């Protein structure tokens, strides 16, 4: 028997096996994409959809026949409030801001949420709303005869522009968005200069000695430390150890009567800064390393000092890459939740943060809070907040790409 025939005997089965496994590898890739796609789809699915609204007080009983509540003017709304609002709530709202000073839209909100009190009786996801509309309508007419079926986008202007409240229908993300932006500003302010400076030291100055090698290894190790450990560090150092500074009492700042005891935006921002510092350093190092040595040598050759070379040649030439790496690190920091819970994010905060010494909550914290509530409405609210968070991260990345491209065009050296 010749070897060639032996070879041919096996060949078909070997190829068949090859094809089978090829299919397996393709399937696993497909599965990975499906899983990750499902993640995004779920969010969209939950952020929009039909809801069944049931009013505690029938709107038609409040207005004269043939008119609608939305079309009433301020005076008519005032009349409804005077008639129907309980004296206790009336006084409470009057104390917030006198009724005479309020606009019609304001009064309408009060009538709606204090007297009519709409309630979400049932919620549906986007896919249910799109593909099972008929059965939803049937179900609603049976279960909630006086309910109204409306399509609701849980991400809406009201949601984006109001502070947090306890009710799912009126709550908003403004408090959390402001908190996130303030916190991240502190993080950027601290981590960018320190991180880039550290990278310059390691790439341009550090000699190959034991101390510098240790610093380098140490940075790699820090990049792998779980984020919650940084939370513990922040709790012990910033919240407790430096309480006088982080609570603002050392600077005579009063936190509008509330005691924030170190659990402030400043502490949170610094904790996140320490957290992303290793990543920023590593990215910036790679950017600086990519600059050809000839650029430095020609600068030194015409008489520039080392720092002049770095400041006028190396940094401008590598800044686009440094920036991209740093922004990637920051967009990771925006999504961080665990360290901020440990540092002491407020669980329920109705007052928007006013400065770095305010108590804080951030978008991921709110998502965590809302997700852990059992009611279905909060689940949709959480999905809406996730949409806002992802949009924030995307716009940050888009900004980075845009700036990088602009810098590239101005750049003199590759």
């Amino acid at each position, binding site marked *: 028997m010749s070897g060639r025939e032996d070879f041919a005997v096996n060949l078909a089965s070997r190829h068949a096996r*090859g094809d089978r496994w090829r299919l397996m590898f393709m399937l*696993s890739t497909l599965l990975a994409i499906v899983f990750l796609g499902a993640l995004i789809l779920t969010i969209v699915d939950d952020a929009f959809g039909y809801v069944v609204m049931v009013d505690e007080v029938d709107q038609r009983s409040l207005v004269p026949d043939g008119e609608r509540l939305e079309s009433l003017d301020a005076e008519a709304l005032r009349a409804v409030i005077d008639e129907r609002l309980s004296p206790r709530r009336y006084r409470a709202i009057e104390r917030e801001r006198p009724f005479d000073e309020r606009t019609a839209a304001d009064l309408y909100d009060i009538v709606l949420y204090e007297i009519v009190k709409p309630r979400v009786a049932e919620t549906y996801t986007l896919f249910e709303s799109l593909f099972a509309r008929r059965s939803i309508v049937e179900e609603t007419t049976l279960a909630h005869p006086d309910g109204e079926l409306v399509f609701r986008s849980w991400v809406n202007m009201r949601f984006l522009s109001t502070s947090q409240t306890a009710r799912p229908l009126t709550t908003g993300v403004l408090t959390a968005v402001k908190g996130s932006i303030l916190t991240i500003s502190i993080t950027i302010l601290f981590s960018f200069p320190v991180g880039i400076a550290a990278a310059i030291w390691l790439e341009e100055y550090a000699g190959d000695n034991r101390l510098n090698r240790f610093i380098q290894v140490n940075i790699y190790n820090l990049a*792998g430390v779980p984020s919650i*450990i940084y939370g513990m560090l922040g709790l012990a150092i910033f919240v407790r150890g430096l309480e006088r500074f982080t609570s603002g009492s050392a600077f005579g700042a009063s936190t509008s009567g509330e005691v924030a005891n170190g659990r402030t935006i400043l502490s949170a921002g610094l904790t996140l800064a320490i957290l992303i510092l290793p990543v920023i350093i590593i990215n910036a190092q790679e950017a600086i390393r990519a600059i050809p040595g000839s650029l430095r040598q020609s600068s030194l050759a015409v008489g520039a000092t080392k720092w002049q070379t770095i400041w006028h040649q190396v940094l401008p030439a590598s800044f686009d890459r440094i920036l991209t790496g740093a922004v990637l690190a920051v967009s990771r920091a925006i*999504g961080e939740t665990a360290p901020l819970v440990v540092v002491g994010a407020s669980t329920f905060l109705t007052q928007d943060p006013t400065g770095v010494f305010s108590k804080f909550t951030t978008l991921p914290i709110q998502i965590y809070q809302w*997700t852990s509530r059992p009611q279905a409405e909060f689940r949709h609210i959480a999905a809406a907040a996730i949409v806002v968070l992802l949009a924030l991260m995307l716009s940050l990345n888009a900004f980075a790409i845009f700036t990088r491209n602009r810098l590239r065009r101005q750049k003199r050296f590759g």
Partner: protein
Amino acid sequence: MKPVQTARYPEEARGALSFGKRFRPHEAVIQALLFFCAAVSILTTLGIIVVLGAESSALFKEVSLWEFVSGTSWQPTIGEFGILPLVNATLMTSLAAMLVALPLGLGVAIYLAEYASERVRETLKPILEVLAGVPTVVHGYFALTVVTPALRGLFGQESIEVYNTLSAGLVMGILILPLISSMCEDALSAVPRSLREAAYAMGATKLETSVTIIVPAAFSGIAAAFILGLSRAVGETMIVALAAGAGPNLTLNPLKAAETMTGHIVRISGGDISYDSMDYRSLFAIALVLFLATLALNMVSRSIVKKYREVYE
């Protein structure tokens, strides 16, 4: 004809012109500043060690170390500090995560590195990278609202609890999948073409080349990716905090609720906690265990890359 410039360097006038190194104070100050910034990372490490060490040693004055490592019940209210239930839950979720991420991640990596066309690879890689940037709290949301109900539909409502380690572990697998697949893909792509071509020339099929030549050649990179993924899974917090349940529970049943180390830290520190209490200190002791475990894993991962990397010309 007069020279354009007649001025001389002051040093030249003094007859002391030197091209040697001059002392420039502001350069030295800048250098010192840069070094200080680099040293911040050392301060951070020191801070972590000192803070975790000091608080946990305060705990170990009251609870013996042996009790801490071997106790089977974690109930700070009655003074029981046995870390086993928390470690057990962490291991269970991490194991489930690796069971998802390991085969799937390697499959994706082999497909992208060996089979996919240039265009498919260029499209899929950025997608995977973007998805790796999704915050983990979103994964937690996904676990609680999608995976858990799906599992309960599959196994029956009675046999599986609302909070369970299986759901958390599976979603954690999805979380670390992009990390593992992208690191493995890098390792596989780094294997030179000549090895593949040699294998084809010997008559090996594509599968045989991939499995018997390329994967072993890239083994150090793949092993490092797995260990790094494991370290990420051990330290992952929000998924387990949302989906794995509250309350330490020593069980090997993945369908039951059990709190992991990270989940416990988040739940306790999220509530009102008084400083200098045993509760507070015990959190730092847990964090110390977590820190040492992930540090060891990361170091092993990096030393594997260093030691066993095949160097090709």
